[in-house]
């Protein structure tokens, strides 16, 4: 769980960086998307790098979900009778919402891939963008409810990363003192804010017209 989660953290950081290319204009953004497909050629076939990443991420998703299901069912079996009254004293909203929040993210990722990769659903004019992912991004976030879906997903992602970052470091046994634990908690905040904030910049900028076609 921790290892697959850390892979996702690496991925979202890279993906977020790529998205910020939207601020550099249509050409840079599309060039970057194109570059991802040519990365490693001629050593790798066209889209070879992309497929290595895809296979790796799919494997990580499977591991991550399998662990989540195992932990969830063990927890349910370990406490079959619930408390009539139970207070939260040491947990955070992020640590308490890992399971439902993770499911929300899964749903979002399915929708997101349909939106930008597999079907390229363009809710504003049906144009799939063809070789122009920049146009698809702008059209998407010109639609207010799409922006809302993405922003809600980023809140869920921020929460998931806030606890997930700390938790993975603790699971790997890297927080053996109060200081290192405080650092791991701080890392959770930084990753959550940078990633969720960074991802949210593009949709928000499209919505208010800073990024346009």
């Amino acid at each position, binding site marked *: 769980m921790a290892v697959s989660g850390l892979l996702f953290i690496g991925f979202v950081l890279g993906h977020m960086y790529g998205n910020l290319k939207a601020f550099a204009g249509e050409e840079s953004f599309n060039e970057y998307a194109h570059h991802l497909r040519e990365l490693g050629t001629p050593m790798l076939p066209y889209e070879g790098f992309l497929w290595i990443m895809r296979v790796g991420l799919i494997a990580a998703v499977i591991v991550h979900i399998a662990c989540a299901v*195992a*932990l969830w069912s*063990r*927890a349910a*079996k*370990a*406490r*079959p*009778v*619930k*408390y*009539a*009254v*139970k*207070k*939260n*004293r*040491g*947990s*955070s909203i992020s*640590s*308490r919402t*890992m399971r439902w929040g993770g499911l929300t993210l899964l749903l979002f990722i399915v929708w997101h891939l349909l939106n930008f990769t597999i079907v390229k659903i363009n809710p504003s004019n049906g144009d799939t963008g063809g070789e122009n992912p920049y146009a698809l991004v702008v059209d998407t976030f010109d639609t207010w409810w799409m922006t809302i879906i993405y922003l809600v997903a980023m809140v869920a992602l921020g929460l998931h990363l806030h*606890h997930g970052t*700390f*938790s993975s470091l*603790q*699971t*790997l*046994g*890297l*927080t*053996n*003192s*109060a200081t*290192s*634990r405080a650092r791991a908690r701080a890392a959770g905040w930084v990753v959550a804010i940078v990633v969720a904030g960074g991802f949210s910049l593009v949709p928000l900028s499209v919505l208010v017209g800073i990024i346009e076609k």
Partner: protein
Amino acid sequence: MKLTLKIWRQENPTATGAIHTYELDGVSKDMSFLEMLDLLNEQLVTSGEEPVAFDSDCREGICGMCSLMINGEAHGPEVTTTCQLHMRSFNDGDTITIEPWRAEPFPVLKDLVVDRSAFDRIIQAGGYISANTGSAPEANSVPAPRDKAMRAFNVATCIGCGACVAACPNGSASLFMGAKITHLGELPQGQPERWSRVVDMVGQHDHEGFGGCTNIGECASACPKEIPLDVISQLNKDLRTALKNGH
């Protein structure tokens, strides 16, 4: 003080229990929580009802028997054991809900009494060191570095009360296990069995049906002995090292 008590009553391990409500008057602020329950039981016995069964032994915060979930908090609102909790932590007119620890490996025997022998089996699986019995060895013959000794002492204060399990949304006993693994793992005497210890204890823990840790941290906040969360990290680190070395 006058209190309304909502208490879990359950005849025996297989009976279905329910929360019963009692009114209790004449509670003094200076009473301990268990003395308050003693008062309730006197009242129940006088009126010919079955007294509420609850556990206690030392009543001085060192044995870990007095396991009660009080208003949704293990051992109640203070960082201490139930026996060291006093009624001055409550107010006149309060409603107090009292439940047993809830975990499949801690079955309810009667009312508020649970069977915590799953903890004993975890300790038997690995929470020990092997030493010759007979005359005690010279105390300073095996030197322990000060920082390690301090850490070992701090986590050796675990009394095995089970509050960590009770508070954990996953029903995991990782804090309890981590405390023992850290305590023995920091000391020279704990080294010979160090790697098999963690593997065997975790194996027994999972076998007993405790949940898996997701580092939520309710345990450390509930612990009357303030065992810190880093013992779980230590457990994970020792487990990783042990598995890597083929234990």
